[in-house]
């Protein structure tokens, strides 16, 4: 990656945060993709793929809990650290700084609620129309970003669709 980018460059598979560790910062993805992996006694499971522009690790800013999952690079990625101290100092003077974070967390809660509803026994899986709408919403979000990269978005979209297909298949299999 060029000298022009901000943040720290992580190689494919390199861990940015580890589940169970204490944290005092959050992160903003500058370039590339990251995967969020949850470890349990049954092994590890990928719970999400994070994209360029997304923020993660914000729970460490607001509560004194350990990291809830491991996040590692999916291909080469560049990530910027946001210090808890810098953020909390500024948020005292400008509470509206939290607005973007609240919006992002709200979107995540909405998505997780949908996924939980799909996984409950007897629930009707979300239709392809609903999934298409979710993808359309994501595309609108991506368009809002000032630095758009068509190729990266296309690649990302393909990966996402693959992930979602697997998600639907897995949900159906569980119901069966």
């Amino acid at each position: 990656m060029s000298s022009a980018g901000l943040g720290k460059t992580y190689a494919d598979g390199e861990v940015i945060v580890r589940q169970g560790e204490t944290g005092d910062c959050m992160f903003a993805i500058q370039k590339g993709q990251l995967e969020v992996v949850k470890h349990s006694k049954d092994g590890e499971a990928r719970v999400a793929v994070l994209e360029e522009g997304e923020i993660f690790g914000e729970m460490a800013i607001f509560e004194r809990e350990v990291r809830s999952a491991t996040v590692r690079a999916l291909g080469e990625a560049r990530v910027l650290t946001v210090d808890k101290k810098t953020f909390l100092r500024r948020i005292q003077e400008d509470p509206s700084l939290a607005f973007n974070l609240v919006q992002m967390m709200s979107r995540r809660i909405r998505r997780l609620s949908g996924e939980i509803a799909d996984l409950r026994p007897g629930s009707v899986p979300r239709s392809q129309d609903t999934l298409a709408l979710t993808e359309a919403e994501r595309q609108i979000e991506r368009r809002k970003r000032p630095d758009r990269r068509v190729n990266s978005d296309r690649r990302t979209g393909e990966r996402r669709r693959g992930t979602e297909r697997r998600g639907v298949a897995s949900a159906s299999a569980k119901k069966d």
Partner: protein
Amino acid sequence: MKLGARTGGQSRGIATYFEEASERLALEDGSRVGVIGGGPAGSFFAYFALKMARSAGIDISVDVYEARLFDQRGPAGCNHCGGVVSESLVQLLATEGINLPPTVVRRGIESYVLHTDVGRVLINTPLEEKRIAAVYRGNGPKESEPVEIAGFDRFLLDLAISAGANVVRKLVTGFDWDHGRPQIMTPDGAESTYDLVAVAAGVNSHIVKTLNSRDADYQPPETLRAFISEFHLGEATINECLGNSMHVFLLDLPRLEFAALIPKGEFATLCLLGDDVDEELIESFLATREVKACFPGNVVPAPVCHCFPRINVRAAVRPYADRIVWIGDSGVNRLFKDGIGSAYRTAKAAAKTVVFRGISRADFERGFWPECRNLIMDNWIAKLIFGVTTLIQRVRFLRRGVLRMTALEQQREGRKRLMSSVLWDVFTGSAPYKEILLRTFHPMFPLRLAWNLVAGNVVRTKEQGVREEAQ
């Protein structure tokens, strides 16, 4: 019939409230906002005002008056500035969802090199991460090759456009009042009346001086002349000579307050701040051994581009009135550092005020002015800190002690970086000056400094990382 007159007593208060509310100056659906200047302050203001108004359910329109699109190389597309986005601002923008892409960041800065006549020391960021952005305000220096880059100001203006701002590519030639509402005039004779005008024209524009504002006690900020120049070195030479470090000079030269060499792509930007920088000061600075050592073959090449912009060194008086607010450089700024950060802070404070409070003088007094006052108070502390920095610049005995203490902190893993963190934040402008001052009250700080003053001047051991050069 007045509610208060009919019901009397406590209701009078309610009636007064409603009367005041009906007369309140506030933005409402269909309100028009004019912004003079499309630099960082103007673009941030337009972006946040539109975003906040949308979240509050108010439909407003924002016109940003900016004759340039910042896509020309050289002075025509440039806003004459060192072009450093501070560590704290990079983080805050990321939190706001504004990430600076590599096409805008010409180099990510991960360390500082402090040059003095008694040696130099490398100060690394604790996380070893590039969190300071070296950017061009325009589209690169004069004579630079056209490349796939975007200027920082263009990036922010695009951001404002994406939020719904309309850019009016005209110079503002006049300003007046039309039945109590601000009016902007352009060279084609057009006159546009607005509900609110935000002035973000900087201190180098004629419009700040010519603005006449009825009922406004506004007085423009005091300024000093700075010097900025660009040297073409090529990317390989930059990597070899300067790397990803910003080079800061603490040299005993009269009238020099601060000097920095900032690597950017194929160029290095030299930024000199001081008491009215002139040719004589520039020549004596470029002739020093410490500066020459930063260039290949110890020879300073001829600059390809240079300018003498004025910088805000004392806040404007009362930068607000009914329906008008001054933001960025034309209002209040941090002393010598983080001008873009100050633009972000004052622009956002003004945007919050106009959307959630109102646009009267009293609203700005309560919502916008506290943010400005914080910056002004911090600048008083900055004067004290820069006074100490000047003392260190003048007294070699002090320079040796400071340099030794910093070098040892950088070498030893796990050692609390007291002096390094103070110098880092003084140079980067990342933390408020008050916080920097408080850090020097750490009990170990004076003890360690005293020991290093003795050891650096009497014992005179030579640690790795400190290059003491014979005079």
